[in-house]
């Protein structure tokens, strides 16, 4: 029987098993793969459209101030009077806008860790060449990457847009504002690291996504409210207790990066001796505590 006749007769071929002889990575590749899968999950990629709506809407919202600023400047670029009176949002201010990304963390941090425990996927993950450290690095890294990206991209839009509409020309704008090229990445990286570490650490305490999300938002609201009360009670003199506002501590570090000192009005630590150092110590304690909790949670996996 010819091959054509066999095909016409609907022959079924058992292709058997083909061993794999290609490249095979170790821990680093496995960690990168877990990071990639977590990023994909957080952004809703290869998932139903409903999972895509929130992250991409949030990215759009985070970029709106930059687009509006650049757009207005573009419209009035030929009117020197209006242009002189128009105030762009500053790069420093824009880092503050990124605090809205705590919403994103509250939604996605539980989504990338809770199902692993709830659906008992962890034993399978840890049967791969992965350790608890790798798992934590991949999960925190995924959220960090997205928060950083969503904070950084609008700043890029703002920078490029302002270059293009600058009266003095793009090159002059670039050279005059070259310092933001290192200030912005550092400031948003500090914000993204704390948000990702604390968000994933809180989410790791529960199997249920909704509980994890509520816990993150609850921590954000309660700590910021308490910090607001103690700062108000200090009657403008500032208080070390302002660091209770855990998700606003990165903004003090932002000021250290952009201004070299705490902002006299915006920071609850301004007026406190050694306020900058207190902010750095508080930030470090929060991040170290979050990672310690995560490493403890994933030190051992039960089959």
């Amino acid at each position, binding site marked *: 029987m010819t091959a054509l006749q066999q095909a016409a007769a609907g022959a079924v071929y058992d292709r058997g098993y083909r061993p*794999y002889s290609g490249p095979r990575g170790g821990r680093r590749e496995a960690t990168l*793969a877990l990071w990639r899968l977590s990023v994909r999950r957080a952004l809703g990629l290869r998932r139903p459209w409903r999972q895509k709506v929130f992250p991409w809407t949030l990215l759009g919202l985070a970029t709106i101030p930059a687009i509006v600023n650049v757009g207005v400047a573009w419209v009035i670029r030929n009117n020197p009077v209006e242009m002189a009176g128009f105030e762009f949002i500053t790069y420093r201010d824009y880092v503050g806008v990124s605090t809205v990304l705590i919403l994103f963390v509250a939604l996605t941090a539980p989504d990338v860790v809770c199902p692993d425990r709830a659906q008992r996927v962890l034993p399978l993950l840890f049967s791969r*060449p992965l350790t608890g450290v790798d798992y934590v690095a991949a999960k925190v890294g995924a959220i960090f990457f997205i928060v950083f990206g969503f904070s950084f991209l609008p700043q890029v839009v703002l920078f490029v847009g302002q270059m293009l509409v600058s009266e003095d020309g793009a090159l002059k704008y670039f050279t005059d504002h070259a310092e933001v090229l290192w200030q912005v990445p550092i400031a948003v990286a500090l914000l993204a690291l704390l948000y990702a570490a604390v968000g994933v650490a809180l989410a790791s305490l529960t199997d249920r996504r909704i509980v994890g999300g509520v816990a993150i938002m609850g921590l954000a609201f309660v700590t910021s409210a308490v910090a607001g009360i103690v700062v108000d009670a200090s009657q403008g003199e500032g208080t070390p207790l302002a660091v209770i506002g855990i998700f606003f501590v990165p903004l003090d570090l932002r000021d250290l990066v952009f201004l070299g000192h705490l902002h006299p009005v915006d920071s609850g630590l301004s007026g406190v001796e050694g306020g900058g150092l207190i902010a750095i110590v508080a930030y470090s304690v929060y991040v170290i505590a979050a990672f310690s909790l995560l490493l403890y949670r994933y030190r051992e996996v039960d089959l």
Partner: protein
Amino acid sequence: MHPASSPPMLRAAGLTMTYPNGVTALAGLTVDVPRGSVGLVGANGAGKTTLFRLMLGLMRPTHGVLEVAGHRIDSDPVAVRSRLGYMPEHDCLPLDQTAADVVSSFGELAGLPARAARQRASDVLDLVGLDEARFRPVGGFSTGMRQRTKLAQALVADPELVLLDEPTAGLDPLGREEMLELVGRLAGFGISAILATHLLDDVQRVCQNVVMVDRGHLVLAGPIDQLMQTTGYMRVEVDGRDDAVPALAQALAGHGVTTTPVDDHHIDVDTQVHGDVTFDLVRDAVADLGLRLYAVSTRHRSLDDVFLQEAYR
């Protein structure tokens, strides 16, 4: 294919695992397990899951040495893990992903490049019979399909050894048959398998070797054929006299052969002492006694018999 002339797939020497709460799950387990399909059998609490945990490097033994494919677990558990596939007993799959995504993801997590992982996922899903359903979410799968998906993710990185924890649990008879058929084919692919189960029939059907553990102790280990032979006996059916069975028993006892009467016409004859010579002894005794010999069948004991005999001896 993996080389056959390599070290034992699993070597345990004095392996002891005592949990912080004082429970000793494994007590000085010493065993060499060859490549191929191996049944790890024992009742609940025998130490099977603990042995899997140790093999996966998820915890360290209290004492002793454990090697998988010639590599000591305690020196580099991650490297050992990259040679293993693991199929847990419980549900463990992300329910909102398609089978293709799940299996290729676990291929990537085993260190395969993304493109190779996708290709391998396609191949192994085809192999386990899920080629038509690969783009459906796992959450909509039946128990049998989920078991196949779990097996596919264990195989996707072409491991040297797969650890299968109760692979037929929860399956209907047809699903069980199909799963056992798949497991039975693994040795032919060059993939060794350790099948942890309390269903001795499953082991008897698809494994060449068995390791029996009970309350952390090794009961026995070896090739199943050999175990069945050395612990077997023949059943003899005779007639011709009212006391045919007692007479034959007495005659064989004179040659040091142990027998167990079954009824007036059947007697079980132990073949452990004399081996095949026992057949000659039975033939001669029947002839000398003037009995009619209707049947001689080599009746192997089941693994259940072996386990019960050895574990509670």
